[in-house]
């Protein structure tokens, strides 16, 4: 076997205390702005990075985050705790982002980076370029596939959580993940070798 053993690892999702967040949501529902501020600041930076990777537009990120927490503010009284608070918040952010992309004419254009732009200028064996190279590859995916893989690999959500966030069946998440992986294999063929530090071709 050429690869490392698939040891079970700790989920990469940052540890969020759902019980504590539920209390915050309860306070937000009573129009407690301090609670909203705590919630906002605990999510904003990571959420912004996630949305920046998806949209590549600072103005859309600002808009989507603002709209997300406006909806959290407005809808907190209706939140029944059927899902984790983080799943609920990220789901709202996802829908706000789609709305912002649609308004900007970017949704439906299939990809934000023109298909002719290939990520070949990077040398994946130079460590500080590797992350940019991967980011460039991701920009070639359609939005839905990019969101799926970012939710899994950056935000660390499970299959069921992604299905809930994107409001689609698990089978759709699997299909999006599958197509994203196939495309990335073509776009970033040397990634595994670069990570292990050995040329593999």
């Amino acid at each position, binding site marked *: *076997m*050429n*690869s*490392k*053993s*698939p*040891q*079970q*690892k*700790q*989920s*990469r*999702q940052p540890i969020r205390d759902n019980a504590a967040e539920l209390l915050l949501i309860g306070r937000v529902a009573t129009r407690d*702005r301090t609670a*909203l*501020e705590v919630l*906002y*600041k605990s999510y*904003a*930076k990571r959420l*912004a*990075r996630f949305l*920046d*990777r998806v949209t590549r537009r*600072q*103005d*859309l*990120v*600002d808009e989507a985050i*603002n*709209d997300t927490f*406006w*909806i959290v*503010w*407005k809808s907190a009284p209706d939140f029944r705790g059927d899902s984790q608070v983080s799943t609920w918040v990220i789901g709202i952010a996802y829908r706000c982002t789609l709305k912002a992309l649609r*308004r900007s004419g970017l949704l439906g254009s299939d990809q934000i980076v023109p298909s002719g732009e290939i990520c070949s200028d990077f040398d994946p064996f130079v460590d500080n370029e*590797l*992350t*940019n190279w*991967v*980011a460039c590859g991701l920009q070639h995916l359609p939005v839905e596939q990019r969101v799926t893989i*970012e939710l*899994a*690999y*950056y935000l*660390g959500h*499970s*299959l069921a959580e992604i299905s809930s966030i994107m409001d689609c069946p698990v089978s759709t998440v*699997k299909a999006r993940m*599958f197509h994203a*992986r*196939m495309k*990335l*294999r*073509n776009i*970033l063929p040397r*990634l*595994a070798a670069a*990570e*292990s530090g050995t040329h593999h071709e």
Partner: protein
Amino acid sequence: MSDSTSMEAIRDARHRQIWELIPWIVTGHAAEAECETVRVHCLHCSNCADELRFQQALQLEMAKESGRDFDAERGWARLQRDIEIRSDDDGEEVLELSRRRVRPALRLRQVLAIMAVEALVLGLAGATLLHGSGRAGQPYQTLAANAQTPRGATVRLVVSPDLSIAQLATLLRSLKMQIVEGPSDLGAFALAPIDFDSETEAVVARLRATPGVRLAEPIH
């Protein structure tokens, strides 16, 4: 593993099952039994082992905190301001509508909602921005009412009285925008781009994110 080889491999049900499990193995969401299934399979399947290695490498890179920094303090200030402005029962609808051109076909309820938010904005901006006295009893006016939009104007702007002229000038310079009219009786400026390349939506978004900006909206 070449693309065609991958496709052939995953056509087989067993390989397909392993392929589906790999991302959740990589992220730590798979059950122990699933991890063991993949481990055993990869001992004698180089294609799936390659895929596992590729996904581990990809996840490692994607998990890194890269990308632009977000100014949470500024974002929070903007959200607070928006809550003040939007906190009426129809807030979300008003938000959506205020971002779009008001079309003649709008329902009366929507038009009233827009007028309500404009009234609220004017109320906030009003006391000091507008002429202070002698306005009681005058008919209500929206920002766009009777507006003879100057040629080239793309954005309507109302600022807080706390924003100094120097700050406003710096802000507009950074956006490559210039005042082509205003302040109107209602305190609104009309802005036009210095560069033809300026994107109105982006300018409006930046203005809205700036402390001291009460209202920024595209002029259609």
